[in-house]
């Protein structure tokens, strides 16, 4: 009898453990949406394999693999492993797609990107693979053909595929950042790629020009300029030579395009007091959105266009308010601090970043739409202003004087990984992250 019972107990325990371990081995979540930056995923990106011979191919292989690593590092999700620790070199593999996962898991890599580069005249063919090394699974593979000069575009495309597989979102690699710089001696508007590459001057007003704002299709830019001697609002198509000017008496400032509409909100003071108005993309006033005496400015739209955050001095000091466009109701959002300005509504819809000033110093804060928080993201390092969210709501661009002259910085939505985006002659301020651009 005892023998039988022992056998049954053993069988039951074994069954329990088998089922138990089955339950414990849950689906592997690559990136935890609730705090994606809490743990960076270790990823290995060896130098791509030369599929053609020659110095050009060798150089491009190195350049492309470095660029892919930099681009992924920019997101803040990954820890790029040092190539010095690698046990395998895909250059020596017969086929670069043939990998030995143990070579990679043993150095701690959870993801691996391999690639091959083939050059023919001025054309290049790049093929990439993303592996989950622990699961020993190919996650995505793509082949691209194009001109050598389009190498950055090709690498960015595959990075978008990687991010899509891991987060379900295509990421920000197709976006750009507009900003103001005094490189030419005057404040003008510049645009650079999301990672700070290729800054180029967009306005040539030879006067004070500031406050750029992107339309949600990325085709139009609105901004304020003293080109005609006073602060007027310009609406400019970025590729074609067309646009409009709003040159009413007083100030015409802080444009903010309505999501998915050819319309924008802006602050105009022609009535004698700065108020926010809704305008068509051609510059015609549709209606007035704020109706209180005292400064009202800096509108920022919720991603569904149904709410508008803005700054108002109606209670005595500048604070953030939210207006429900349909009902017209206005409620106050910030109650901490005596000077809160520059709201930027996260594309995820749940939070607003803004600049709060205390003792003469500005810092970036984030507050929930429901008022939860605020959380301070920058501390004790110069003036930090003008927050602007990346189109997927994962990163925030801002300006900082922490090292002296004002520069554009980027950090994650949680305030980690604060780093400088670019530095060109003069001072850079007022970054404005574009929406995702189609066909880039």
């Amino acid at each position, binding site marked *: 009898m005892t023998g039988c019972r022992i056998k049954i107990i053993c069988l039951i325990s074994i069954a329990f453990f088998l089922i138990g371990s089955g339950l414990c081995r849950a689906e592997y979540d690559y990136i935890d949406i609730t705090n994606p930056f809490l743990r960076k995923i270790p990823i290995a990106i060896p130098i791509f394999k030369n599929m053609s011979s020659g110095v050009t191919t060798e150089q491009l292989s190195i350049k492309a693999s470095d660029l892919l690593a930099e681009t992924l590092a920019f997101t803040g999700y990954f820890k790029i492993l040092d190539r010095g620790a690698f046990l395998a070199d895909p250059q020596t593999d017969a086929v670069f797609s043939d990998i030995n996962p143990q070579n990679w898991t043993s150095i701690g890599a959870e993801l691996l990107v391999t690639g091959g580069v083939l050059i023919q005249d001025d054309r290049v063919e790049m093929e990439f693979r993303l592996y989950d090394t622990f699961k020993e699974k190919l996650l995505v593979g793509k082949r691209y053909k194009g001109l050598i000069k389009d190498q950055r575009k090709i690498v960015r495309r595959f990075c978008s595929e990687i991010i899509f597989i891991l987060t379900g979102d295509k990421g920000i690699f197709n976006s750009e950042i507009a900003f103001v710089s005094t490189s030419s001696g005057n404040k003008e508007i510049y645009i650079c790629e999301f990672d700070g590459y290729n800054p180029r001057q967009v306005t040539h007003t030879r006067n004070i020009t*500031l406050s750029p704002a992107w339309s949600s299709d990325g085709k139009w830019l609105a901004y304020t300029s003293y080109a005609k001697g006073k602060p007027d609002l310009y609406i400019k198509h970025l590729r074609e030579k067309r646009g409009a000017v709003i040159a009413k008496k*007083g100030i015409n400032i802080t444009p903010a395009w309505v999501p998915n509409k050819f319309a924008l909100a802006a*602050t105009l003071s022609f009535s004698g007091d700065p108020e926010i108005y809704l305008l068509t993309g051609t510059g015609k006033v549709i209606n007035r959105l704020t109706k209180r005496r005292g400064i009202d400015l*800096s509108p920022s739209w919720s991603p569904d266009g149904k709410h508008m955050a803005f700054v108002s001095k109606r209670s005595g000091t500048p604070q953030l308010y939210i207006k429900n466009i349909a009902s017209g109701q206005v409620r106050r959002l910030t109650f901490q601090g005596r*000077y809160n300005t520059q709201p930027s509504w996260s594309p995820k819809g749940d939070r607003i970043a803004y600049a709060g000033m205390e003792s003469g110093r*500005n810092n970036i804060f984030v507050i929930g739409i429901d008022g939860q928080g605020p959380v301070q993201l920058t501390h004790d390092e110069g003036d930090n202003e003008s927050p602007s969210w990346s189109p997927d709501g994962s990163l925030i661009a801002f300006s900082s004087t922490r090292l002296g002259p004002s520069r554009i910085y980027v950090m994650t939505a949680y305030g980690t990984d604060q780093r400088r985006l670019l530095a060109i002659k003069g001072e850079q301020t007022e970054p404005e992250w574009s929406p995702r651009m189609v066909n880039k």
Partner: protein
Amino acid sequence: MRKKLWINLALVLVIPGLLFTVSCAKKTVKADTTLTQQAEDDAAAAAAEKAKQEELARQRALEEQRIEEEAARKLAARNMFLNEDIYFEFDSAALLAEAQAILKKKAEWLQNNSNATATIEGHCDDRGTNEYNLALGDTRAASAKTFLMDLGIAGARLSCISYGEERPVDPGHNEEAWAKNRRGHFIID
């Protein structure tokens, strides 16, 4: 008898002759006096003329001096209109007593120069954000304009413009510099 006759004759001839000479001499003397008188008169007239000229010159000089002083006063008043700024407290467009006193002087100038039009510039210190300061500068200029209109200056003669923190007079980052930058500034169109 003949001796007496000759003596009488001599006397008759000599005395009138003497008288003649005397009277002739007198006549000569009379003529000299007129000349001197003439000369005196001329001299007097010349002196008077000279005095008159001097007086005129003095008057002219006084007049010129008055004109110069007037012009200098006008220039000083104009310069004061242009160079005397009004100042504001942090994050405020309220006009303090000193600012109001300065604005009264500006109103006076505008009243004395009824053809002049002016632009009021509103400026801020560089604390705070560029956009907010553009709006604040706008309210500062508007505040000054309203005050001047209340003193009787026609609104059509005054325009406003805000430069926010974009055009500081002092690039420093301290209380002294900030105080200088928080200003309303006038220019004559």
